[in-house]
């Protein structure tokens, strides 16, 4: 075992345990915190693959921005009421069965995929994940998707404002 393998196994087990804790935690705030831990582990994996920009953007956007949004939403919920919404054993069972089916499909898919069979990830090599290379590719080959993504952001903003501002508008009328 060399250093990279040790780090890999540590990060992987950390990610899996945190992910399980996201599901098991009773309190939604705990779940969010464990989810942040998962993002950290995944960023660690990105760094092992030398995808540095992706790693840091994963931290800034997912762990830093989207999780803050999640926390805001949870703080806006009324947690005094029954926090455990589903007590029905049959619904839990159905959820477990369908989740297990999805897992099976995913595992078999990964095992059968010929593209990744017998290939190894490039560890700490390659510079495709560096910010400079990424920028070159983004602004030469992928200009159109880049612009389209800005349209997507615009529509998301409109959606957020329409949903978020509905109440006050009704009051004014």
């Amino acid at each position, binding site marked *: 075992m060399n250093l990279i393998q040790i780090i890999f196994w540590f990060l992987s087990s950390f990610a899996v345990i945190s992910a399980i804790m996201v599901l098991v935690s009773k309190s939604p705030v705990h779940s969010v915190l464990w989810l942040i831990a998962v993002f950290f582990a995944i960023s660690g994996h990105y760094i092992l693959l030398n995808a540095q*920009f992706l790693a840091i953007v994963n931290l800034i956007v997912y762990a830093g921005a989207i999780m803050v949004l999640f926390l805001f939403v949870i703080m*806006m919920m009324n947690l005094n009421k029954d926090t455990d919404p589903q007590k029905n054993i049959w619904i839990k069972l159905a959820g477990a069965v369908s989740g297990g089916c999805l897992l099976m499909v995913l595992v078999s898919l990964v095992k059968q995929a010929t593209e990744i069979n017998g290939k190894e990830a490039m560890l700490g090599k390659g510079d495709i994940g560096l910010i400079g290379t990424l*920028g070159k590719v983004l602004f030469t080959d992928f200009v159109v998707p880049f612009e389209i993504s800005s349209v997507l952001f615009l529509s998301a903003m409109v959606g957020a404002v329409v949903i978020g501002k509905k109440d006050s508008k009704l009051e004014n009328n």
Partner: protein
Amino acid sequence: MHSLLNINSSTAINYLPIAIQLIFVIGFIGTMLALSAITGPKRKTKDKLETFASGIEHHGDARSPMAVKYFLIAILFVLFDVEVIFFYPYAVNFRTFAADPTMAWKTFMAVLMFVGFFVIGFVYVIKKGALKWED
């Protein structure tokens, strides 16, 4: 493996010191918290451990819904933050693009178009009063 850390700032090994620092800092802070918990006096009374509400009895707890404005700020932040992140790969390559006469204005126009959509969204948000704090 010799002194890889000092040669090139774009290899993954550069992040190892950050991991060391994280472990160091967490260890230090954990020790400090534990030590201060041990050294302090412990005289727990019921009144002392009540939630502080300026001397009056507290009513209910703080697990109640908050204003939707904060939520709106957060969701707009997520969207604008991703847009801002998109500028960084361009900014890093800006010098190389600018030095190439064929690429300079083409890429800059692409970015300007992106900024244009950004501004349209921004103006829409402001016009709709999503950032107006007093309703």
